[in-house]
């Protein structure tokens, strides 16, 4: 028996629409759930006071510091490395088998689970180089973790600059670096910045790679070799060890808001980029 196309059409709309709706409901539920329970806890006081009794009460000030400094270290190291590398790969080398292998390699590294970076950072930075659990070890580990992503997104942004711009620039007597500086980078910049912002977002939310390299000290770090705790690590410890559900919710809310802010600004930049282009 053949079902009339009109009914398959309706059935499809119901099933596909249902799947979309379910997806949206789940995702919105997660955010609303966390914010609803966390926002009442989250306040100026919560953000700026020190935790007491392992975080059972008090605020999350030191973890706020950790959450700012760790991604900052990572970004300061990984951005120039990543951007220069992508400029070199896309503007100074010709497309060969070697560049294809490099691209595949960075793709694979971008897909490596963060726990493996944590394992590497722990053995290499913390133990072998003797940095101990520290901001430096954690920042370096995060830098290594986001480097492939930055290389990839920068390269995509650079490749999106029309080839004709390069031709025009070269035909007007520009050298490679002049072309990069005056035409390529200004046009690729929003794309590169978006990639960097997304990496910051990822660093803020990262737990597995951080907990084993930066440690989980609740003191306010005074040097790069001090251990520190980020909000995600703090949240993980509060939740997993059942220390304080209330403070866990508060921290989670702060975490989500931070990550969403970073990502929203990335999208805002991207959109400005696209609308400027067309």
């Amino acid at each position, binding site marked *: 028996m053949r079902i009339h*196309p*009109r009914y398959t059409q309706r059935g*499809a*709309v119901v099933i*596909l*629409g249902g*799947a*979309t709706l*379910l*997806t*949206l409901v*789940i*995702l919105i539920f*997660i*955010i609303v*759930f*966390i914010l609803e329970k966390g926002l009442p806890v989250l306040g100026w006081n919560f953000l700026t006071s020190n935790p007491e009794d392992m975080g059972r009460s008090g605020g999350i000030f030191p973890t706020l510091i950790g959450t700012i400094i760790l991604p900052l270290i990572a970004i300061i190291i990984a951005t120039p*490395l990543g951007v*220069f*590398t992508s400029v*070199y790969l896309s503007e*100074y080398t010709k497309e060969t088998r070697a560049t294809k292998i490099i691209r*595949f*390699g*960075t*793709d*694979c590294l971008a*897909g490596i*689970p*963060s*726990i*493996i970076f944590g*394992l*590497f950072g*722990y*053995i*290499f930075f913390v133990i072998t180089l003797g940095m101990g659990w520290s901001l430096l070890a954690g920042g370096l580990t995060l830098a290594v973790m986001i480097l*492939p992503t930055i*290389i990839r997104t920068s390269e995509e942004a650079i490749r999106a600059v029309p080839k004709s711009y390069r031709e025009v620039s070269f035909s007007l007597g520009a*050298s*490679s*670096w002049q072309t990069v500086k005056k035409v390529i980078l200004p046009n690729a910049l929003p794309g590169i910045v978006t990639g960097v912002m*997304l990496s910051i*977002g990822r660093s803020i*939310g*990262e*737990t*597995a790679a951080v907990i*084993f390299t930066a440690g989980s000290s609740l003191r306010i770090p005074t040097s790069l070799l001090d251990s520190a705790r980020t909000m995600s690590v703090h*949240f*993980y410890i509060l*939740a997993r060890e059942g220390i304080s559900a209330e403070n866990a919710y508060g921290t*989670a809310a702060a*975490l*989500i808001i931070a*990550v*969403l802010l*970073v*990502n*929203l600004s990335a999208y805002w930049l991207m959109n400005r980029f696209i609308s400027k282009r067309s």
Partner: protein
Amino acid sequence: MKLFGEKAVRRILMVTAFSALSGLLLIALFILNEGLPFIFKYGIKEFLFSSDWYPHLGKFGIYPMIVASLWVTLGAMIVGAPLGVFGAIFLSEYTPRPVMKIIKPTIELLAAIPSVVYGFIGVMVLAPIIRANFGGPGLSLLAASIILGIMILPTVISISIDSILAVPQSYREGSYALGATTWQTTHMVTIKASKSGIIASIILGLGRAIGETMAVIMVAGNSVNIPNTPLDSVRTLTANIALEMSYATGMHRQALFATGVVLLIVIIILNSLASVAIRKRMVKR
């Protein structure tokens, strides 16, 4: 003088690129170097297919973790793939473009939510529901599958939408001109043309699922055993590394690196598959 500047810049860029790339290569080699010798010394078969994981007795069989990782990933796919692909089809073919342009970034935004938050939701909301309705400890293979299935949704939806939108409008118009409904056009023309991109999106989602650590640690229960039912507590490869890393030394630590090597190889295979699928799409066009 100017020419010197040009050469210097080229050299600086080259050195930076070379050090960044060789640094990344070194990490891969470092992990292989720490893990591979152990695998060969301990025996590949013993390591991969023995169920005895007793680090204090020098027994390092990761078979239960491999099985758990596979089941959890498969479960995530069963939950996430249809939901994600259906959602992508609906958003790209049945939703007005301006609405889609708002919903897609919203869903992508959810990829940014830290995995610990997903894990927390699993513990607070999902596990109690499972415990109440199906029994068992709640923290289980099932809970991990559902949470990971949700976590891969942004990846699957975003990449699927991109590949569906890449299908030339003329294909659809050709189908509509022959009197097809939207659904007929979608499943006979659009999905066929974007199949490899959709597959790539699922593979990349799998990569994310198999590599996820914190959320899984929080919801899977973490006992080393081969699950009999979806309600059993399991420990995945990633969880195994994370749970024991801070106190492992000697052989035990090497065994964890070896676990990392296994994960690395799985990820490389998945990435190769995804890039083959994506390249197939390019060639077809």
